[in-house]
């Protein structure tokens, strides 16, 4: 027990939380933008897998990090656009389309990897590049704080920057207002001249872009190579974090970090050789509990609406 506490209340543990929460923050922000546009998309897993592989292929073939990032982004956004075409134009069932694209992501990436390298498990034979780590000047010398927040992968800092950018985009720009109005009331939005489908496509485009960064972090930061099915449900946890955060960027980020902490705790247990199965369940159990609690919150807001109506009626009388 003592060992567990020592492992959990250490700087390494908090460093790990930020490290494992990075992809979750990216996906949850992607899910948030897409959800604001009124789209139920579960295809993030597929987007991230393709982006992760694209980043590895691009950087390995050209030995240029930026080409890698560009190719990864193109791969991820392509999946998002396929989703957009089928769901928005052909009016396909969104959940089934998302499921199909996740299947495509799982098998298609392995297929592509095999066609390029002759290997199926990992891309370790490709000499792909990694995004560098960054020791923040000054902060890195502060005793505890420096150990926790300095020396992360650049993607980690980008993830937190993304939260701010998403907040600004959604609440402070015209595009954000359009995305929200399309998501909340498409008919009303259309009546004031907003192009509904186009706006939804844009929100998917941005969502795909952010999710791609989450995917590329996995193969170019978290691990130095691509492995098959390496997202292991992170795309779905991101959706859950967005749900738990109630569509508010800051809360969504905190939810993603909560899921990250559950994962970090399970890592500690695994390294201590305790029966890890139950701890490995933890992130998923937390997600379900999170989903339940959102349901509870919604009920509360219903009762609020009722109360407001009652007040209105009493003032009319």
């Amino acid at each position, binding site marked *: 027990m003592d060992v567990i506490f020592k492992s959990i209340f250490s700087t390494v543990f908090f460093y790990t939380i930020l490290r494992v929460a990075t992809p979750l923050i990216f996906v949850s922000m992607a899910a948030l933008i897409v959800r604001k546009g009124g789209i139920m998309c579960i295809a993030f897993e597929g987007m991230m897998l393709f982006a992760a592989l694209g980043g590895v292929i691009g950087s390995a073939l050209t030995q240029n990090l930026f080409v890698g990032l560009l190719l990864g982004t193109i791969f991820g956004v392509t999946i998002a656009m396929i989703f957009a075409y089928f769901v928005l134009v052909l009016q396909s069932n969104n959940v089934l389309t998302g499921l199909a694209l996740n299947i*495509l992501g799982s*098998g298609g990436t392995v*297929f592509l990897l095999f066609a390029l390298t002759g290997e199926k498990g990992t891309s370790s034979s490709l000499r792909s590049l990694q995004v560098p780590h960054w020791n923040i000047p000054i902060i890195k010398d502060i005793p505890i704080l420096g150990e926790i927040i300095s020396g992360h992968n650049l993607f980690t800092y980008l993830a937190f920057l993304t939260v701010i950018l998403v907040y600004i985009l959604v609440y402070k720009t015209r595009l954000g207002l359009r995305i929200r109005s399309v998501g909340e009331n498409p008919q009303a939005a259309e009546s004031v001249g907003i192009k509904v489908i186009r706006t939804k496509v844009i929100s998917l485009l941005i969502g795909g872009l952010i999710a791609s960064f989450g995917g590329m972090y996995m193969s170019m930061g978290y691990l130095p190579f691509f492995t098959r099915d390496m997202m292991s449900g992170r795309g779905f946890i991101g959706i859950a974090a967005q749900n738990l955060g109630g569509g508010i960027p800051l809360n969504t980020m905190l939810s993603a970090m909560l899921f990250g902490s559950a994962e970090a705790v399970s890592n500690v247990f695994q390294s201590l050789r305790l029966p890890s199965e139950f701890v490995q369940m933890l992130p998923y159990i937390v997600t379900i509990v999170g989903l339940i609690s959102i349901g509870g919150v919604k009920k509360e807001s219903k009762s609020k609406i009722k109360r407001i109506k009652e007040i209105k009626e009493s003032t009319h009388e």
Partner: protein
Amino acid sequence: MINKIENQFKFIRIAISISIALLLAFLIISFVSKDPLFAMYNLIIGPFENIRRVGNIVELMIPLLFTGVGVSIMYSAGQINMASEGAFFLGGVAAAYVSVTFLLPYGIHPVVAMIAGGLIGGLIGLIPAILFVKFKALPVVSSLMLNYISYFLGMYVIHYIIFDPETGYLSSFLYKETAILPKLFSVTRIHWGLVIGLIVVVLGYLFLKKSKWGYAIRMIGMNPNFAQYSGINVGFYILLCQLIGGAIAGIGGAVEQLGMYSRFQYQKLSGHGFDGVLVAILANYNPKFVPLAAFFIAYVRVGADVMARNSDVPIEIVSIIQAVIIVFVASERFLAGWKHRKIVKASQERFASEEA
């Protein structure tokens, strides 16, 4: 008349979706393979080349009968519940536990194992439904999370309760001989699960398409508000059909273990539950067509396997084919213009004949 066109249209759309997927697969094969014609020959003709491979198709099809019927029942109420995957896995684990630890006579042992699998599967199917009915938690997300929980729970049972340390890898003890489902034919590995699966298909069809409960469930799937107003207890029926669907998937997991394996050796989720979704979509959520859809999927699998072993195209081509089929079949507007014209024409003819 219009109903007939709707049904006809659904079949044509599924057929065209499959054709598009196969065409795309050929295109990809001709890009990546050095000898594309040989690869395609293996994919299409390979599965029928000898009796053993035909047997493989049927063996692969058996678990899909269960998950296909299970998912058809679950989705008929409009619930996108992915828990069939976890239900199938834990159903297998429960059957493994019963087969390893219980001492029962021939005939009764597999039945008890299947009941155990069905109970745990039903429970897994039920949880997302309860969360949805009680707390409005999105079943897609909660069921996917539940699959991971089911996986770790199952691995815990295998790892700490019925773990056989002598095999050198993570697996259970050997199943007792009394629990094994006997083979039907001597040449292939086709087992009694086929018969059980076909019984499940028939019962599933009767339940979903011919019973009062099935009618209520389908009505909820079409329009939950209307069902609610016409006095149907929506919450109850959603729970009922998710329970039944999960239980069928769980029995499927048990049958697969007892028919195909001598010890539990899955290292990850088997994917049969997700395949069940695909089968159910192809069967248009009608258990009657599940055997056909399951046979087709199993055929493509065996074909891809034969191709992967004889040529240079990896088996993952299957997932590309599956994804393409799903997106086109699930598309409302795909070929809708054609259907529209057909319906207009039929109505005009009818008007003309009525006037005459």
